[in-house]
């Protein structure tokens, strides 16, 4: 019994750390004050740092960001509004320009038409004059050619008559030729 006790004590001495206290260090009451003290210190430090520095700073940054975003959205809205206005002005200017262009086109067209009419009239008059002139020339040519025809016919007739040897009266031959030409004409 005695020897056994000694061996047990020796065993305890060898593995003092494990065998001495209770198995779970969590239940070692002697370390509690230490842990609680340092826990409170740590929590105090973290709370101090958080409440004094970190949280106000992060809160401010988040608020600033939210403000910036709101402002940016407002600015974007403003810009969009302005862009819409500019677009409206542009459309209006475009429509005005189109109306103006149409007006100018119509005006020019009317003017050109007027000029064209005048020129047309002038040309028509000229053409009519030329036509009349030509008609006169043609009439004259026709008349002269008819006359030539009768002259040639009289000459031929005179020659034919002379060839037959008959001393025909010139005036009679001419009259006969004219009569024949008059029949055919």
């Amino acid at each position, binding site marked *: 019994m005695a020897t056994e006790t000694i061996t047990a004590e020796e065993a305890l001495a060898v593995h003092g750390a494990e065998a001495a206290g209770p198995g*779970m260090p969590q*239940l070692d009451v002697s370390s509690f004050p230490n842990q609680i003290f340092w826990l409170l210190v740590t929590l105090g430090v973290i709370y101090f740092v958080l409440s004094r520095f970190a949280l106000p700073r992060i809160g401010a940054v988040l608020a600033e960001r939210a403000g910036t975003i709101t402002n940016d959205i407002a600015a974007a809205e403003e810009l969009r509004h302005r862009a819409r206005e500019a677009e409206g002005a542009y459309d209006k200017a475009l429509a005005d320009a189109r109306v103006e262009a149409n007006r100018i086109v119509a005006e020019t067209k009317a003017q050109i038409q007027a000029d064209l009419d005048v020129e047309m009239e002038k040309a028509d008059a000229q053409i009519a004059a030329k036509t009349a002139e030509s008609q006169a020339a043609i009439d004259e040519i026709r008349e002269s050619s008819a006359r030539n025809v009768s002259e040639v016919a009289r000459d031929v007739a005179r020659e034919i008559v002379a060839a037959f040897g008959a001393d025909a009266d010139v005036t009679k031959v001419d009259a006969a030729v004219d009569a024949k030409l008059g029949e055919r004409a």
Partner: protein
Amino acid sequence: MEGDIAQFGQFIGAGLAAIGSGLSAIGVGSVAANYLSGALRNPSAAASQTATLFIGLAFAEALGIFSFLVALLLMFAV
């Protein structure tokens, strides 16, 4: 000899206590399964209930942890 019996009792007790932590696995699985089936029925409401899911899981798991702790205490502390 009586040490033997005590140790025997400790180990048996620790083993029995460990069953409890296994049973809590059923609880955790049931929480997760029911959450999943609910979430699949109504996915739009799922996101708002994740906090409840985790609390439920923690409660179910905590009881298993308690029995595991009892097992540990029996094995190493008593």
